[in-house]
């Protein structure tokens, strides 16, 4: 009788992803916040701050709802990755991740599986968010290709955030590492031009936002939705570089987890 062949990268990734997605979809404690939080931010920003569109110098003809939609889309992409990091940390706390490490012949497949799960959960969130925004009367001036560019950017943000959170989770191996995954992500998102364009910011926040990579992503995203693509090359260069850097960070975390046993 021949020996069973060890599962390859793809099989491992799909198995890990299936379990994470199943957990996400069947546990309201995970599903509800993932859907409700972005909607809540969208409603409160787009509804509560719509008067900001009347500030002298605010020039975004597509409307304040679309202006905020882009931020909330990127934010939900990032937090989809961070919440997946929470799941990884929880798996380490319960010992499930250690069983993954023992069973998997290609451990990079474990990280890929978590990343795929993060993408699926984020796509579910985006679908709900987009439908609600359209129902709320959001205007879109960009073409189909522009929108493809917007969601592609968001996908890269999701991948970068997942790799960041996975790196932290595999180093700390406890849900107590949650603030470490969450707070820097929150910080870098909110130190960008969230409420008004960069040109209307002043003082220290303008200085910080000018060098914050999220600013380029936001400006490109807002350019896509308004049909006036802006700084696309810079945004995609940042969007492509961040996942690579954080994948290296995650790989280091995986090595640490392997060493810890």
């Amino acid at each position: 009788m021949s020996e069973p062949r060890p599962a390859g990268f793809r099989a491992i990734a799909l198995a890990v992803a299936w379990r994470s997605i199943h957990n996400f979809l069947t546990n309201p404690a995970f599903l509800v916040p993932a859907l409700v939080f972005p909607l809540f931010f969208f409603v409160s920003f787009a509804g509560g701050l719509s008067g900001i569109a009347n500030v002298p110098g605010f020039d975004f003809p597509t409307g304040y709802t679309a202006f905020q939609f882009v931020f909330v889309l990127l934010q939900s992409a990032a937090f989809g990755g961070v919440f997946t990091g929470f799941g990884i940390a929880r798996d380490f706390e319960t010992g499930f991740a250690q069983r993954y490490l023992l069973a998997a012949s290609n451990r990079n497949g474990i990280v890929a599986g978590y990343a795929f799960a993060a993408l699926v959960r984020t796509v579910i969130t985006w679908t709900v968010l987009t439908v609600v925004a359209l129902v709320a009367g959001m205007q879109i001036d960009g073409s189909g290709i522009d929108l493809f560019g917007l969601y592609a950017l968001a996908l890269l943000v999701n991948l970068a955030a997942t790799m960041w959170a996975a790196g932290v989770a595999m180093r700390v191996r406890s849900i107590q590492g949650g603030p470490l995954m969450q707070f820097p992500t929150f910080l870098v998102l909110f130190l960008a031009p969230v409420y008004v364009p960069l040109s209307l910011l002043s003082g220290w926040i303008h200085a910080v936002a000018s060098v914050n990579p999220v600013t380029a992503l936001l400006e490109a995203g807002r350019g896509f939705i308004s049909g006036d693509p802006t700084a696309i090359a810079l945004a995609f260069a940042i969007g492509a570089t961040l996942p690579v850097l954080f994948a290296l960070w995650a790989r280091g975390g995986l090595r640490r987890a392997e060493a810890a046993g």
Partner: protein
Amino acid sequence: MSGSLRTQVGQLAHRSVLRTLRQPAQIVPALIFPLFLLAVNSGGLKEATNLPGFPTDSYLTFALAVPFMQGALFSVMNAGTDLARDIETGFLNRLALTPLRGAALLSGLLAGAVVLGLLQAVTYLVVGLTAGAELAAGVPGALMIVALSVTITVAFGTIGLFAALRTGSGEAVQSLFPVFFVFLFLSSMALPLDLLQTTWFHDVASANPVSYLLQAFRSLLIEGWNVGDLALGFGIAAAILALGMYAASAALKTRLVRT
């Protein structure tokens, strides 16, 4: 208050205060997170002061009211989580075997919220004023802000106690945090009520008591002494406190019967 009740409240208050002060994980986020949001929002929304009808030319002054409300939200979590832990570890069951009165238990547990509320209020005020916020009501206004902040913190703390007694679970209490954040975000947190343009949002914010609690702080920071706004703010806080204490007392009775 009888001597016995005073002793009971004193003992539990001492324990509650020590427990709060010994948990940096409770104090630090309650101080740092609202100040971070204050910094970001006052920078990002500075241009809002150019809107016709905006009540001040300093968005920092306008936004300084918000940390006091966010701090009060943390008191829901802290007071509730502490009590839930007492339930989960069986400490409440042991207390139930003593002649301790329900009123003493609830009042004592709120002592931690009072201390945290005081610490938060002073910190927010000092940081805000140092950063350049104005205080139209002067030094007496500062004292009034601290008093209002502590009252609101304690009032919200009773809701945390109620949730803990009803559910007996720290996780369930933690899950209340987003619910309370909804109240904060759907209020006049970022813009004054009369500048909220989206009709439904304006209606919701107008019916939301948090808008009037924020206005009580803002009246002292921006206008000076507005007795109507202050009375409304203190009145709402007192109503929440009374309702919260009533609900928590009823929940305590039910839990002790179950025990």
